[in-house]
């Protein structure tokens, strides 16, 4: 129970961090940082709220999310090959 609350506090704090860093002009790094924070947040939600971490009987389910992410990266990356080099 307490874990849930700690996680929630971290999530809210990360949101704050994301908002406050966005004010500054860091060029391209701004996007990277924002996405990094978003990934950390979704990692917390996945592992704690959605109990991926405790998925004992089907451990491979944990790999589905990184897997799907890799696929998405491929989709976007290959499309960029077209867009960026046209």
């Amino acid at each position, binding site marked *: 129970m307490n874990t849930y609350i700690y996680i929630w506090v971290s999530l809210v704090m990360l949101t704050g961090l994301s908002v406050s860093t966005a004010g500054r002009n860091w060029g391209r790094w701004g996007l990277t940082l924002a996405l990094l924070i978003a990934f950390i947040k979704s990692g917390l939600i996945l592992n704690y709220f959605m109990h991926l971490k405790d998925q004992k009987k089907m451990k491979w389910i944990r790999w589905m999310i990184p897997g799907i992410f890799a696929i998405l990266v491929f989709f976007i990356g290959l499309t960029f*090959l*077209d867009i960026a080099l046209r």
Partner: protein
Amino acid sequence: MPSFYEENGRFRGFWAWIFSTDHKRIGLLYLLSILSFYAIGVLLGFLIRLELIAPGPTIMRPQTYNALFTLHGVIMIFLFVIPGIPAIFGNFFLPIQIGARDVAFPKLNLLSWWIYMGGAALAILSLFTGGGPIDTGWTFYVPYSLRTPVNVPLAVLGVFVLGFSSILTGINMVTTTHQLRAPGMTWFRLPLFVWGIYATAWIQILVTPVVGITLLLTLMERLVGVGIFDPAKGGDPLLYQHLFWIYSHPAVYIMILPAMGIISEILPVFARRTIFGYKAIAFSSLAIAIVGSFVWGHHMFVSGQSDVASVVFSLLTFLVAVPSGVKVFNWVSTLYKGSIEVAPPLLFALTFIFLFAIGGLTGLFQGALATDVHLHDTYWVVGHFHYVIFGGTGFAIFGALHYWFPKMFGRMYHRKIPYIAWGLLFVGFNTLYFPMLLLGWQGMPRRYFDYLPQFHSLQFLSTIGSWILIGGLILMFGNLVHCLFKGEKAESNPWGGATLEWQIPSPPPRENFDEIPLVSKGPYEYR
């Protein structure tokens, strides 16, 4: 033990079918509905050919023709080949082959059929409402699909809904294969048909949503004018093509992988020996599913896509050809030193290998950059995909029907007629589609209502082929339908198959197995 036909549930008659959660009944529901749509699609194909028998307007007007090939494509792709094997034979046989009583989510399974019918109903409704039948081609390319006054939204919504059904079937198949295997049914004792369906199911789950969102956006763009793809609003129409093919290329593997699974079932049974290279065939399915997801750009070589992208996509395209080749070689080797009985299912399976090889090899010409510049959007492409889809998936379905007919219906068909039908189909098929390859090489573009006089003789020949094909189809289906009622009773294992479905009565009892079997050997071990 009463068969699943006799045991009704809460409902009677008709209702006992459309509200049944039994995977076998649902499989047969799909069989009936999919074949009905197939009959419509075939009729449309026949009309297309009739129009093209001579240059100039023959039996219809251009707008009618455009609607015809669009409907023909939409019905054949979304209502026939994509759901075809997974929903009919996957539903019916996958649970039995892994020793389960049903799929993992029987109710969801029924729901997918209902959704399928809903999507089909929308697509059909779209013909009679709004601005009339859709005329965009099955690819719905923007900006044409945003501009044409016909009823695009409803048709697109129909396809979107069909996608849902496909995803749900996929989820069901993956979960069933993971969770409901009988004791002792290890991954490498799975029949290869299960491997085919399993790989397909993953593609269904992972890429169908991409086309879903694409169509949804097109819909929103048409209805409320949000700017996404429309160049008039700054959009990039090529992005539509990317998103569309991210789904629709893998979709061609949704069509072919289960068909390849069927071939891998039929060959060992009629060669009476184990399959050659079980693991190679199983893994090549996965390889096709994975690599095949990243080759979509080969539909866009002349679209204005960047050259670098074209080169990369061309390379990846060639790489998917290799695992397909591995399968073909293993199949041919399975015949080696077998004890072969050329029963109708085997005949169709061998024809599959021949026609699919032609289709696949013609694909290589399109995968090569320089040649595709010439071949793209010509009849070469039309020839290519009819060879792989009809010659491949279509003939695999015919093979499966003849292979599993006794199991599904408990009756045997007339054993001689399929050979005559096969002869007509084979000759008709090649007369119909081979000229298309030549036409394409000579530069006849596709989706043409009319053509220049130099293409006349080949187009004419092609139309003649379609008539021969009619004969074959009618004879084949006539035989099956007739024997559905009049055929003699079938034994439980007429072909001597070793997979689980042949170890239970024909037709199977309601819950397939009295007792869940204990599996102790591979699927094709005859001794």
